[in-house]
């Protein structure tokens, strides 16, 4: 007899498969349990301390909550509804039922009980979302209570967190199932079982690409997989504009054909650089702000250097274009470098940094050009998440070394404008040296 969650024989087959998959170390719920543990620890311990600090610094907020309990609860409910809408939309790209690569094959390529296999992924997502929301529901009211706020808020927070978490995770599942099931009002178990294998495979690979890209700060693979070009021919053709300008226009044409993702990278790039160039950041007491902003600018720039990355991808093959590689690299990088330099300089001049603002602009542009060269002239990550295999620690460091150097340059820039120029040029020199080494002809055996 088959029960709702599978027969004993099915469970035993799945257990054997898990034994092979995980080799006795953990199981499909290990990662969600660790995630929930981290969310609980960070959410409650640090969240309540942070909330306490906020309510102490701005007591008017605590007073407003105390005076208007129903309005406060209404705002939380509105936030839950907005969160649910966002979760529904996110589900179309990355749903809660998403077995990781390795585990995913159980669903799409074996005859193991599908419903049981997917159930574990669904339970894991539920656990993480519910834990996170409940911890938020505990941490914020706890901070409020520590600041002398009302005690009832703690009970309300726990209740709203639990209900909100359930609503959000259900909306997330329904977003994933949207278009693949007859009715979104069906029970969660039916929706989970009805998710098609092709959808799970696509979302899982996409998620793995994005996650690994975030971990190693290398967006190339994720952009290739997550943001395919819309096959539009707008602009219709590259203008013929001479030997050098045509290369720049080709880059621009390629970017325009990449759709809205390029606009997002450009906004992120400009936002990071404008904030970085302000007086508040350049004179900040904390040495962390500037490096983090430079790192963000570096990551966003990788979405805007398609020509350079293509050039790097063809290293070792006979060159197509009639330009030396140095000229081609300069043409790919120069427009972006000018934009970066101008953004930092203008932000500095407007916010009162003074005559040294252009020096920061030059230093930042040079550093980002150097880190771009480092990215472009090494192979993109092709392995799985976490670089599984021997030497993965060194492999991870190697994969993320451009970002590490960008971060290090950011720390150097906190020492002053002249140092910013020096570290920027140093990173540019390192990037150039790496590129020159990659472009050297190989030796025939």
């Amino acid at each position, binding site marked *: 007899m088959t029960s709702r969650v599978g027969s004993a024989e099915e469970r035993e087959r799945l257990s054997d498969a898990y034994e092979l998959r995980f080799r006795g170390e953990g199981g499909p719920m290990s990662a969600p349990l660790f995630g929930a543990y981290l969310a609980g620890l960070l959410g409650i311990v640090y969240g309540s301390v942070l909330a306490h600090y906020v309510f102490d610094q701005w007591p008017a907020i605590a007073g407003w909550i105390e005076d208007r309990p129903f309005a406060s609860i209404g705002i939380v409910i509105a936030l839950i509804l907005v969160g649910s809408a966002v979760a529904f939309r996110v589900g179309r790209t990355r749903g809660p039922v998403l077995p990781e690569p390795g585990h995913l094959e159980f669903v799409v390529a074996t005859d193991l009980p599908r419903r049981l296999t997917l159930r574990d992924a669904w339970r894991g997502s539920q656990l993480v979302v519910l834990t996170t929301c409940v911890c938020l529901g505990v941490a914020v009211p706890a901070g409020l209570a520590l600041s002398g706020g009302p005690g009832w808020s703690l009970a309300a927070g726990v209740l709203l967190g639990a209900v909100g978490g359930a609503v959000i995770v259900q909306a997330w599942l329904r977003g994933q199932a949207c278009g693949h099931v007859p009715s979104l009002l069906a029970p969660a178990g039916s929706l989970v079982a009805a998710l098609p294998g092709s959808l799970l495979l696509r979302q899982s690979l996409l998620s793995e690409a994005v996650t690994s890209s975030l971990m190693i700060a290398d967006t190339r693979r994720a952009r290739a997989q997550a943001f395919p070009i819309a096959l539009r021919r707008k602009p219709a053709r590259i203008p013929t504009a001479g*030997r050098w300008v*045509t290369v720049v226009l080709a880059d621009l044409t390629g970017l325009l054909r990449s759709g809205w993702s390029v606009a997002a990278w450009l906004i992120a790039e400009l936002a990071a650089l404008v904030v970085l160039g302000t007086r508040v950041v350049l004179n900040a007491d904390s040495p962390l702000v500037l490096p983090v902003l430079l790192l963000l600018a570096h990551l966003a720039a990788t979405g805007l250097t398609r020509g350079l990355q*293509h050039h790097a991808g063809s290293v070792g093959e*006979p060159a*197509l274009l009639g330009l030396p590689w140095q000229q081609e690299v300069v043409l790919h990088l120069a427009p972006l470098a000018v934009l970066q330099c101008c953004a930092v300089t203008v932000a500095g001049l407007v916010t009162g940094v003074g005559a040294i603002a252009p020096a920061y602009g030059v230093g930042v542009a040079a550093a980002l050009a150097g880190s771009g060269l480092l990215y472009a002239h090494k192979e993109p990550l092709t392995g799985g998440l976490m670089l599984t295999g021997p030497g993965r620690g060194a492999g991870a460091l190697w994969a993320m070394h451009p970002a590490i150097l960008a971060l290090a340059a950011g720390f150097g820039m906190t020492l002053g404008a002249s140092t910013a120029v020096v570290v920027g040029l140093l990173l540019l020199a390192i990037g150039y040296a790496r590129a020159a080494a990659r472009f050297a002809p190989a*030796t*025939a*055996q």
Partner: protein
Amino acid sequence: MLPPTSLTVAPAENVVITGENGSGKTTFLRVLTGNLKPTGGTITLDGQPIDERDAGTRRVIAPLIGPVAGYRDLTVADHLILIDQTWGGDRDGAGERIAAVLERLDIMRFGNRFLAELSSGQRQLVELSMVLLRPSALLVLDEPEQRLDEGRRSMLGEVLRERVAAGSSVVWACHDRTLAEATATRTVHFPGAR
């Protein structure tokens, strides 16, 4: 592995290299274009060393060895415009030059397609057009007949004969004996892999 090889290519010569798989044909072509450095011996162009990074070498030798790493977001016409302009073509005559090479290879109708939208045979012809468009005195091609149907192979032979008649040289590896015999002025056979 490349066996000891000695070869001199004269102007307006069409040299076909034959040999079984693994005999070193592609390696030789890469050495010939300055894309690989030989571990022994020399390779020269008018007495000067050959290096693919050198502007002088690149202006004389146009290689098509392996698939071209094209831009995924540029069309065939975009690629040809980019190649024509970076090789110093004048702006006004670009359209005419590009149309001529597309017409000659009978691929004019693919000009507005992305490379990913082409079949393997169509892509082979497009890649050939990219090499034919740029200025060169020596074409170096690695099995350009691959993935082409019989009619297109004949056309390829005609195109190569036209290049030679215009004074250029061609060195190419080929597995099609009939095409090689009908096209080449000289055949060099590489011994089998050791």
